[in-house]
């Protein structure tokens, strides 16, 4: 049981469970860290003995140094991080709002959904990288086209998950609402949206990742700021440690986004957390 649940449950003699659970969890985290340290140590050793050429995969210590330099010494990376994060966040939010509006309309008006679906599927399956040049034509070289690509990339996985979630899956729930003479809006508010929450969060998880991917891709294709741009720069001068440093950074950002989303999900969708395994 998560700690938020314990606030709600009146005493059922669960005094032992939280403590047992957190030490279990702590052990798991420790094991994860240990795994990471072992892999890094192994790579460091292999690099030092010359088993891996530095152009292919630099030693972890060199990568770390590049990262440290970019973040804390020359601080060159900070501006680019902010640029990427900014586009990611802005594109994600715009995409999310658009996705929710479109999904809501389609969910509540089934015949309209049926009409539009072929086009939605066609647009979804088109690789968004292919439309990047078009977006640049429309929005110009710079922030707007970058934003547009992020939105284009993040919109579809979010919209489709939202739509799936907003469907009414329980006939009894629908009958209950109809027996009370509910309006479509009331059904939307009391049944569709809360039921959709787990699906919405699936969409948000995907949307966050796709937003980050979209931002860096846009930066590859035509931008003068952001981590994607820096990565191209580093590659151009064969600064492999720099390239890897950016990759590490992107992984950290992606993980952080995921953890934020997951924490939010636990609070919002409190009623449908995965049941915990029996305490040993």
């Amino acid at each position, binding site marked *: 049981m998560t700690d938020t649940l314990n606030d709600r449950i009146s005493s059922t003699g669960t005094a032992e469970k939280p403590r047992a659970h957190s030490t279990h969890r702590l052990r798991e985290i420790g094991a994860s860290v240990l795994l990471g340290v072992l892999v890094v140590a192994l790579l460091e050793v292999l690099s030092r003995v010359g088993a891996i050429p530095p152009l292919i995969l630099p030693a972890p210590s060199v990568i770390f140094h590049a990262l440290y330099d970019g973040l804390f010494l020359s601080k060159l990376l900070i501006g680019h991080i902010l640029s990427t994060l900014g586009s990611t966040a802005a594109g994600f939010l715009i995409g999310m709002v658009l996705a929710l509006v479109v999904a809501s309309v389609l969910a509540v008006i089934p015949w309209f959904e049926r009409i539009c679906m072929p086009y939605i599927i066609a647009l979804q399956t088109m690789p968004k990288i292919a439309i990047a040049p078009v977006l640049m034509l429309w929005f110009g070289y710079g922030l707007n086209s970058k934003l547009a690509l992020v939105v284009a990339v993040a919109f579809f996985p979010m919209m489709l998950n939202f739509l799936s979630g907003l469907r009414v899956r329980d006939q009894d729930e629908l009958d209950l609402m109809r027996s*009370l003479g*509910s309006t479509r809006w009331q059904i939307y508010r*009391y049944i569709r949206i809360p039921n959709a929450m787990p699906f919405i969060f699936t969409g948000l998880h995907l949307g966050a990742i796709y937003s980050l991917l979209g931002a860096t891709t846009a930066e590859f294709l035509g931008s003068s700021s952001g981590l994607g741009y820096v990565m191209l720069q580093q590659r151009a001068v064969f600064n492999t440690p720099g390239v890897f440093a950016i990759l590490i950074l992107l992984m950290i950002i992606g993980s952080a986004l995921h953890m934020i989303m997951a924490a939010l999900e636990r609070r919002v969708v409190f009623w449908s957390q995965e049941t915990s395994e029996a305490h040993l």
Partner: protein
Amino acid sequence: MHSIAPQPLLSLRDVSKVYASTGAIAVENVNMALSKGEFVSLVGPSGCGKTTAMKLAVGLVDKTEGTIAYKGQPGTPRPGTYGIVFQQPVLLPWWTVEQNVLLPAKVLGLDPAASRARCHKLLELVGLANKEKFYPRQLSGGMRQRVSIARSLLHEPELLFMDEPFGALDAITRERLNFELLQIQDELGVTVLFVTHGISEAVLLSDRVIVMSASPGRMIGEIRIDLAKPRGPQTLREPRFRELEAQTRDMLDAAEAPADGGIVVAR
């Protein structure tokens, strides 16, 4: 014994339901009348269409033929005039027990203070007064169904429709809830249409038991239950209870409807 009110609260005349897409007959020639304060059970084997008959009565399913009248006016009872309880509790898991019971108030726009007072009273009536702030997942199946019953009565409906409400529960809980339902109905005087395939349950709870045949659903007959009220655990031991149970069972076993299509009324 109740005296029958001059005009039935709800009446169905020759109602049938045919599914247009398949041509399958769900139910036919449903004739039913509910008088105020009555407890009527609809008994039949699984799949005989008794749930469909109930949904036709409230208008959740559109009839193909026949007439339905509520309080003398043609048409099914309007939303807000009846309560409904399903086999599953159908509680919203993101709301507390109290919020779930208050759903009709939110949808129908009833006065919040009065509704909350009624909510407390109903939860007391079903024995869940101390569980108001609990979430459905913290309750047992029987408790959740009690919440569902409380919810169905929040807006003070005259009619209560119950579709195999205790079917998903174990036998002991089911029996206990039967007795609780008797008390609730006695206290609130609500008219009940109760769908079940439990013969004992139907005989224990009802003033009248209507028996339906297997698909296509047709009413075979009706049995008047003249057991003394108030009923309780002692009723189960009365010889008359056994007799009525047997009569109902016999009628149910009679596979064919009477040749003339009429209804057999048993004494």
